[in-house]
């Protein structure tokens, strides 16, 4: 199973905010099996969706040069259940970016209803801890394309985001 916890981005403004959607399906094992007989999207996996949405928002600020890792869930509250057939909308804002990482705030909604809210802390894994890239560049670009990040991503002036050249080069090498 791949570690996809959002279906796609619906908005992505570099360094500011991102929105994504997650459709909850009974066909997903974690929905069906986590609480047998009571299928639902558990909050822990919603937090994974927040982390992917926010982690990519933070990582894009430096063209994905930093190794962004989820360091801490500072707070999390969930107000209702997300059930099969539901459509979760995640909204993330980048609260602060610092040399060592950043903080995000995230919410999930079911229609107009607030479903969950959280604050997450991310750290950049330093070279002393991790010596290699966390993701193979071509594979990482494939994930970003699947998520539609470059379909909706814009900079703060509204210009479309460009795919980093090193990702395109890596993709080209895989193709040949």
């Amino acid at each position, binding site marked *: 199973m791949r570690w996809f916890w959002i279906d796609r981005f619906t908005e992505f403004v570099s360094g500011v905010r991102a929105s994504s959607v997650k459709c909850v399906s009974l066909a997903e094992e974690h929905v069906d099996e986590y609480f047998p007989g009571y299928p639902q999207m558990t909050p822990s996996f919603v937090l994974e969706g927040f982390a992917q949405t926010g982690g990519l928002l933070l990582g894009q600020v430096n063209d994905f040069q930093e190794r962004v890792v989820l360091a801490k869930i*500072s707070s999390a509250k969930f107000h209702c259940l997300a059930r099969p057939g539901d459509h979760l909308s995640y909204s993330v804002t980048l609260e*602060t970016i*610092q040399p060592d*990482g950043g*903080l995000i705030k995230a919410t999930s909604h079911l229609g107009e209803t607030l479903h969950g809210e959280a604050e997450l802390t991310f*750290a950049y894994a330093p070279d002393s801890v991790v010596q290699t890239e966390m993701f193979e560049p071509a594979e990482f670009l494939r994930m970003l394309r699947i998520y539609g990040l470059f379909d909706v991503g814009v900079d703060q002036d509204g210009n479309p985001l460009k795919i980093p050249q090193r990702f395109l080069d890596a993709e080209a090498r895989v193709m040949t």
Partner: protein
Amino acid sequence: MPTKQEVFEKIREALVDALGVDEEEVTAEATLVGDLGAESIDFLDIVFRFEKAFGIEIPRAELFPEDILTNAEYVEDGRVTANGVAELKKRMPFADLSNFEANPLVQEFGNLLTVNDMSRYVCSKLGVTE
């Protein structure tokens, strides 16, 4: 320029958010680790919140001098040497190291910093005197 009290209030708010503690628990004398339950990863969160709240840059080594505490030049048999303590005092003029100096066990250092130390540190960065 904020007052010392305003700095303290913002620090309290940041610590409540970062550590999930009640506002009443965040007293001036409370230690971050012993009383408020901060763990190592929380210090990253705390630094981010201070930087955002006060618009300052905080080199982590100024608040949490791990480089000194892991340096063989300053540590012997789990205790910080006199030179090491002198280095800590130079690095952290905002912290009261008198108790630590009496029994400078490295493992006890994490339990040294108080909310008041955080206030003094931020006030020194901002130039707040009143």
